[in-house]
């Protein structure tokens, strides 16, 4: 494990292995001693510190008196890209699912509309007063129904009336 610690210190360890080293540093005194030794060696070689300064003895006692910190987790800069990509991927997935669902709903809405129109047309047809049309009147109405203002409002109702009336006539 010290082998990994050496690479970890140099920032040359994979993230998963680094996590294992950090966990080991927490529970293994020998590892912490090695951490101290390796950093001391680096400082001596670079001449970048007071070699004899070692706060180990007193500092740990002082730190023990400090309340443990429980800071809220913040998104760190290194995670921003991953978080943004994750969010974008999630959004895309939700959009795809929503599109499929809405497409299905749209078909259903269309079917419902048609059913409602047929129903209302049937009800409207039933409510119309019956006139004794003869064949001349029927032909006249059929020929001029496109000029009737009711055509756009009632959809296919006038046409249905004509045809069904024709059917009744034939049955007679």
């Amino acid at each position, binding site marked *: 494990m010290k082998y990994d610690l050496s690479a970890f210190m140099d920032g040359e*360890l994979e993230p998963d292995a680094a996590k294992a080293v950090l966990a080991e540093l927490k529970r293994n005194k020998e590892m912490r001693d090695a951490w101290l030794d390796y950093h*001391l060696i680096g400082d001596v070689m670079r001449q970048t510190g007071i070699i004899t300064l070692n*706060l*180990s003895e007193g500092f740990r006692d*002082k730190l023990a008196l400090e309340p443990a*910190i429980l800071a809220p987790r913040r998104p760190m800069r290194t995670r921003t890209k991953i978080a943004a990509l994750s969010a974008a991927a999630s959004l895309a997935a939700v959009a795809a699912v929503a599109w499929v669902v809405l497409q299905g709903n749209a078909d259903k809405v269309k079917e419902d509309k048609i059913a409602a129109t047929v129903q209302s047309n049937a009800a409207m047809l039933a409510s119309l007063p019956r006139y004794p049309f003869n064949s001349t009147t029927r032909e006249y109405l059929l020929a001029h129904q496109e000029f009737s203002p009711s055509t756009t409002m009632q959809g296919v109702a006038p046409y249905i009336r004509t045809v069904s009336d024709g059917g009744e006539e034939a049955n007679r």
Partner: protein
Amino acid sequence: MGDREIDQQLVERAQHGDKHAFELLVIKYQRKLGRLLSRFIRDATEIEDVTQEAFIKAYRALPSFRGESAFYTWLYRIGINTAKNYLVAMGRRAPTTTEFDVAEAEMFEDGEQLKDVNTPENELMSKQIAKTVNQTLQNLPGELRTAITLREIEGLSYEDIATIMGCPIGTVRSRIFRAREAIAEKLRPMLGTSKDKRW
């Protein structure tokens, strides 16, 4: 993962109650911070006290550390402010901002000044440690000595060292580890192994 990322991981752990993680940062930066503070505090005991105080302040301020700057930059600022406050409290003149710059301080060659702040015992200990490190380094096989020197003094990555030495990265990793262990082996009897002395 670079040096800054390592510090960031340790900071995040400390921010969530892991005091051991903060202790690792203390071990890593105590000597550097001490050296920085020795620029305007002369007494060795005072330097140790102020350095310790600076680390305690940094620990208390950890929740406000957002990782926008490197941990050591943030720590050094706390160290400087702690030292200034200490000097004011002691009725001494604190350095102005223009007198002191963190970036400059890192480049600061302070060999002579360190002699002033060290006690005779510390001076002797420092010399013994330095001598042991240098002698062991000189006695190492050439490939181990080159690998650790390129890493510790030149600050090169394993990939760059591998290119220079014409060997695989795994070999570089192994050579640096073996060099460190060989030197640490010689240092351990000097540094003590009792629980009180070391973490």
